[in-house]
């Protein structure tokens, strides 16, 4: 029961945080120089058209009136209309978010598969050749431009070898499954369309590898540090002296206590991935949130910027909450009440 009340209380805090962030971003966008209507209509739109469109979006009203309208709308679950797409921001986000969610989740899986074992091995073989190799690989991961890696992978696996598909979420000739969740993989499974499913997975591999590799470097480092920290503790020595097998020591006495910082990093990495990744989206023609928000900022599309930030704030808050709840499962000493 206490967990539920904890979640409830956290959700309340979350609302306050989101409201605060929305307010700050709302005023920043309004204060910055630039005119979204003028930008979207281009340099040659006649002045009366610009004025008319500005009225249509309510940008002619005083800022405080716009702010009150915005808050009222926010409580109704509306984020206003985007100037650059001429549609409600919430509709735009609903359309973009599933693509980002799908890619982010796939990337996180890749990052975990690569990052955590690398970190553990690296810690167990501290200062050994394997450790140096792994640290080199992860250094390569953080320092390599995503843009370049994406293009090179496309060049090798799509263009030269032809074993993986090119950009996009599906091949042009594969009809996309009906939209249920917006996740092509899940929708194709739900409708029993296995060709589309296989194709969607194949399309995910390269972008997820690029993003996952990039994130795995970070995960590997934290895992290494965390495991090293645990290795130094008394209970590990005790377990060894007790004659436990190395496998049992690793799973029961090392990984579990080392998990807390790892989970924290995973939460941050996932949050970052869910914001969308502009460069990867651009290279792989992925219709995600990153390119939407970038475009919104270029055009000073007030509502889209504020709406996007609100969504990202909610994502981060929810992930934080999940991470905190996971803590109590991993370490029973942590209790929420």
């Amino acid at each position, binding site marked *: 029961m206490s967990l539920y009340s904890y979640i409830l209380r956290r959700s309340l805090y979350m609302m306050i945080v989101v409201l605060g962030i929305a307010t700050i971003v709302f005023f920043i966008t309004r204060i910055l*120089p*630039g*005119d*979204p209507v*003028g*930008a979207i*209509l*281009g*340099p*040659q*739109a*006649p*002045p009366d058209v*610009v004025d008319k*469109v500005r009225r249509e979006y309510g940008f002619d009203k005083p800022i405080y009136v716009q702010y009150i309208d915005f808050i009222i709308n926010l409580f109704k679950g509306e984020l206003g209309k985007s100037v*650059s*797409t*001429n*549609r409600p921001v919430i509709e735009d986000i609903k359309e973009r978010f599933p693509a980002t969610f799908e890619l982010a989740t796939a990337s996180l899986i890749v990052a975990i598969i690569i990052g955590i074992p690398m970190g*553990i*091995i690296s810690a*167990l*073989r*501290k*200062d*050994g050749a394997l450790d140096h190799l792994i640290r080199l690989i992860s250094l390569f991961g953080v320092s390599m431009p995503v843009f370049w890696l994406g*293009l090179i992978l*496309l060049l090798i696996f*799509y*263009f030269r070898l*032809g*074993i993986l*598909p*090119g950009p*996009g*979420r599906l*091949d*042009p*000739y594969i009809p*996309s499954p009906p939209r249920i969740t917006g996740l092509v993989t899940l929708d194709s499974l739900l409708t029993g369309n296995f060709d589309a499913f296989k194709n969607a997975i*194949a399309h995910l*591999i390269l972008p997820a590898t690029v993003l996952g590799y990039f994130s795995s470097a970070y995960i590997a480092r934290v895992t290494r540090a965390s495991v090293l920290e645990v290795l130094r503790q008394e209970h*590990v020595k005790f377990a*060894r*002296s007790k*004659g436990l*097998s*190395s*496998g049992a*020591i*690793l799973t029961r006495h090392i990984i579990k206590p080392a998990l807390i910082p790892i989970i924290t990093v995973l939460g941050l990495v996932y949050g970052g991935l869910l914001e969308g990744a502009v460069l990867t989206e*651009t*290279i792989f*023609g992925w*219709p995600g949130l990153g*390119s939407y928000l970038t*475009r919104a900022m*270029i*055009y*000073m599309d007030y509502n889209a910027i504020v709406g996007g930030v609100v969504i990202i704030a909610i994502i981060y808050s929810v992930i934080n909450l999940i991470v905190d709840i996971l803590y109590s499962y991993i370490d029973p000493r942590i209790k929420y009440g």
Partner: protein
Amino acid sequence: MKESGDNMGASSKPGSRLGLPWIISIILLILLVASWSYFLIYARQPQQQIQLATRPDTLVIAMDISDAVSMDPAVAYEFTSVMVVNQLYDKLVDFEPPDLTRVVPEVAESWSYSPDGTLWTFKIRQGIKFANGDPLTAKDVEYSLRRVLILSKTAAWLLQQFIAKPEDIVATDNYTLTIKLKEKVAPDLFLSVLAFTTSGIVNPREAEAHASGNDMGSGWLTDHSAGSGPYILEKWDRNSEIVLRANPNYWRGPPSIKTIIIKHVPEPATQMLLLQKGDVDIAFGLTIDQIQQLKNVKGIRILEYPVLQLAYIGMNVNNTYLSNEKVRTAIKYAIDYDGIIRDILKGGAMKVQTIIPYPLLGFNPATPYYRDVNKAKQLLAEAGYPNGFDIELAYPAGAHPQEEIAQKIQRDLAEVGIRVTLRPMAAAEMYQKYRQQSLQLVLAGWGSDYPDPDNNAKAFGDYRIKQLAWRNMWYDDKVADLVEKAYKELDRSTREALYKQITDYILEHGPYAVLYQVVQYVAMRTWVENFVPDPSFGTYLDLSKVYKEPVLKE
């Protein structure tokens, strides 16, 4: 058991038993190898699709479609949407690129206007059907044009500048339509606006069946189509793809390409890979470097064509220095036009110095300005500034090639003594300031909204309509009157002569240094036939004439 304990140590060698980390890594390795080999076997599939991509009845285009807002003709006003809408809807008249000087009949068979040029009558072609089979009549044209005025969206001004109210558009019988204009207007000008996609003819029955509130079906038409054009909009996944299906009822006969897939590929490098691989037939948006790489590649054809876009330096006449015509002329002589085209644009531009682009009526090929440092210095001395002066140049931040051009102009002007401070600005901010007349020098572009010289002449010449002349505070009544005269001139050759006068006058006195006309490139597989690029940014691109020559796989 002891060795395994040692295994946990930092630098000891692995013991005889494999430790868990080894087991985990071996399992992972096996998983990785297994998944890769699965896709190696599965590899056949994408390869088959490469052959499919060359299917003769499907055209795959790679371009950036993120600008598209709506596929409703009354709303569409972005490059992508206008290009798509032109495949979905017919208009009274059309242009046949590359000729943009004279319209050709489309839904209207013929037309005439009253001697005073204000009352137009159009004869509607019989036998045209909408994609759903409904016959197209003058009533439908009346509905569609009135709809543009009633909805009054972004592009409505194109019609609103000539037509006062919806009731001035009347279908007098099933195949006759009359339009009353506000005032006398040059026929070519009015027709060129009727050829724009805003005047696309919508099936009123379908639009109204899907109307919500008083939107006349605009919400539904955002991603559906109800036209009589060669294609039907089958699907538009925003930022992913647009799929067009051939209209079986198309009155000119169904097109040879049955499906057009426009894939969102914003990254030029990815576009190039797709094109070389043969997975797309046409790539819009490659960089000049890529075009040069592809020029001699077997199986790829490059088309090069000037578009109706001029790049210019605007000089605000309100500025103390720039108010002096000699200073403006000095700047025009200080700029290295050839250097910009050769070194920065790598030849991807056409040398034009007048304000009406090629190939419109009234295009003036005069290029009197060239880099002449001594002449520019002398002009500055005559103007009373032998030591030059300080000035600001605004340009869109981070934009290419604008940034490089701005830097080059800074260097060019420095040589004649004019010290330029570069002011890169976000586009939103720059346009706002330009509109408020608060820039000094500005590097900007002007694309013609429709292929009639009036569009550019007004913007550059007539300050009263508050566009470029006004933004640069060049209040010259002589040229503004000439622009108005040409606007109303019914006779084509008299009008052409007027534009010669206007362009010559602005070339000499105007507060603009026109730098060049933009040249665009489109790269395609050689199996694509009959693709005629449109200088008007795809507004008049007709994909229904394109067909594919089946190619044997090498």
